[in-house]
């Protein structure tokens, strides 16, 4: 299988030479990874980086353009847009991270157990995944909000469910292939239990695929979470969140002050694209295939 043919880094003995060899032809994924890392760092160190309190209203500086005092301008209540973008990165990243983590863990567990056990359990799991796959994540989240009320926690729960098939379906089919490889039956001949074979051999060997799927899904879940907040069901004001900022700035677009919506939207687009490119870069690197 191509997954096992990861070529060891060629190049010099110096660490620098090794890094260079690893990086060769990987410009796009490295740039994408840098963007993702920078955004994450910005979210973590928002209190240190932000020049203002994100919720500090300044009636004297409403709807201003870029200036030395407010690099990205201010919104309709005079809050600093840059500070709100930095603080807004926290819920905007945390919610998708939780969703991807939950869907990734539960999806992988379901997929590997279904592939290993087979039979009626596999059929039930597969049918369930197909059923969930039929609903767009956002629709499921809106239904959840209609039943349990608005809030980011509802988005996290419903979108975790909605993204389950994205991980589980792919991992299940890979686990079925892996399971049929001779080394798995040879492990059974060493007297190992099925559980141990699954946990210590199948799972680690499938991890690159899970990582790739999770990275790509992370971008999409961020888009869904932002959309959920945009329609007013997710993060509630005055908390800063990117999707909510796009919605808040919408009236200003007509008034000739597009800064808030523009910058928030730009950040979302750039981050989602970066996740996608990083995902396909990892896929090529770890799995040796384009997807």
């Amino acid at each position, binding site marked *: 299988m191509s997954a096992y043919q990861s070529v060891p880094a060629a190049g010099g003995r110096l660490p620098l030479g090794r890094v260079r060899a690893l990086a060769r032809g990987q410009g796009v994924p490295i740039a994408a990874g840098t963007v993702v890392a920078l955004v994450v760092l910005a979210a973590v160190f928002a209190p240190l980086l932000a020049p203002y309190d994100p919720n500090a209203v300044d009636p004297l500086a409403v709807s201003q353009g870029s200036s030395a005092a407010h690099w990205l301008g201010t919104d309709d209540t005079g809050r600093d847009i840059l500070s709100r973008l930095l603080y807004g990165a926290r819920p905007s990243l945390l919610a998708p991270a939780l969703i991807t983590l939950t869907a990734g863990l539960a999806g992988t567990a379901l997929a590997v157990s279904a592939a290993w056990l087979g039979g009626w359990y596999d059929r039930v799991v597969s049918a369930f995944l197909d059923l969930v796959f039929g609903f767009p994540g956002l629709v499921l989240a809106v239904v959840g909000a209609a039943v349990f009320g608005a809030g980011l926690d509802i988005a996290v729960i419903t979108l975790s469910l909605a993204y389950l098939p994205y991980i589980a379906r792919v991992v299940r089919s890979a686990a079925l292939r892996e399971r049929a490889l001779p080394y798995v039956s*040879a*492990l059974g*001949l*060493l007297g190992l239990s099925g559980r*141990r074979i699954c946990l210590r*051999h199948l799972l680690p060997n499938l991890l690159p695929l899970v990582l790739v799927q999770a990275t790509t899904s992370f971008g999409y879940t961020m888009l869904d979470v932002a959309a959920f907040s945009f329609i007013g069901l997710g993060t509630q004001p005055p908390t800063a969140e990117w999707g909510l900022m796009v919605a808040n700035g919408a009236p200003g677009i007509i008034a000739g002050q597009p800064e808030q919506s523009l910058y928030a939207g730009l950040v979302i687009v750039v981050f989602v694209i970066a996740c996608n490119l990083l995902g396909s870069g990892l896929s090529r690197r770890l799995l040796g295939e384009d997807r």
Partner: protein
Amino acid sequence: MNHMETPLLAFEGLHITLPVRGEHRAVVHRVDLTVPAGGAVGLVGESGSGKSLTARSVLRLLPPGARVGGDVRFDGASVTAMDAASLRALRGSGAAMIFQDPRAHINPLRTIGDFLTEGLVTTRGQRQGAATARATDLLREVGIADAPRRLRQRPAELSGGLLQRVMIAAALIGEPRLLLADEPTTALDVTTQAEVMAVIDEAREQRGLAMLFITHDLALAAAVCDSIAVMYAGSVVEQLPAARLHDASCHPYTRALLAARPDPGTGARPLRAIEGRPLSASEAGPGCAFAPRCPAARDLCTTDRPLPERTGDGRTACHFPLLAGADDAAPGTERTVRHG
């Protein structure tokens, strides 16, 4: 072979069918075969003759959907009726398998050391240190010099011959009583083949291991084993002591196989291929499966399936076994033959 005591391994009318597009097709047909403790039996046949499945049935390592009739007994215990725990014990320390392609049978992402010690540590509760020491000893025994370094390497870093030695060490680590060797040398080059066979031979001798040796190399089987069983289309067509393979074989198929291989002792001669193609067990009609390709076939051969009958030193499933000297076989003595 002493029939009074329980053989270590006994196939009793083993019958295996596999599902092919909805219907079950026979791939192994009523195989009766025994391997005595410490003895070596060679199972010889063409690809698709059912020899691998026969060996795999000992460890219940069959494709999904396979149905097994008859029985396989290991040391008297029925393998087909075993519960999961007994089966794991049998796999762990009763019988061990050496495969044709060692590279496919080791987790490529784990080290050789992990592969060798995992069974000892997890199923026998040995300490990692003790298990590693044992693995090191075994690697030395199978002729791997720098064992400690090899233990830290991954399968991709080892050659095919080295990996097959690792497989042999893995088979020996559970201290089994029976080795199932499924074409262990087929994927290796000729010099490595000889070395690997020597390693297996030595390990067997030291431990008094029994072996079921699967190959399509008649000469190799004859050199390594005490007795030979020739399989065709899922059935054992002839069984005889290895030493008498050349002068006492009387099944037309065995004769044809012997004639189809080069013999360095007799100088150049054209090799004789067997006409037609090998059948699978499910394609065989009511008669002898070899009848369509058999030069000596008569009407009875296409209507009645011959049963194994005692012929001199061995057992042959043939209505009209060839008497010694009737073909190009080495001179032998005249024997009386009972017809089935």
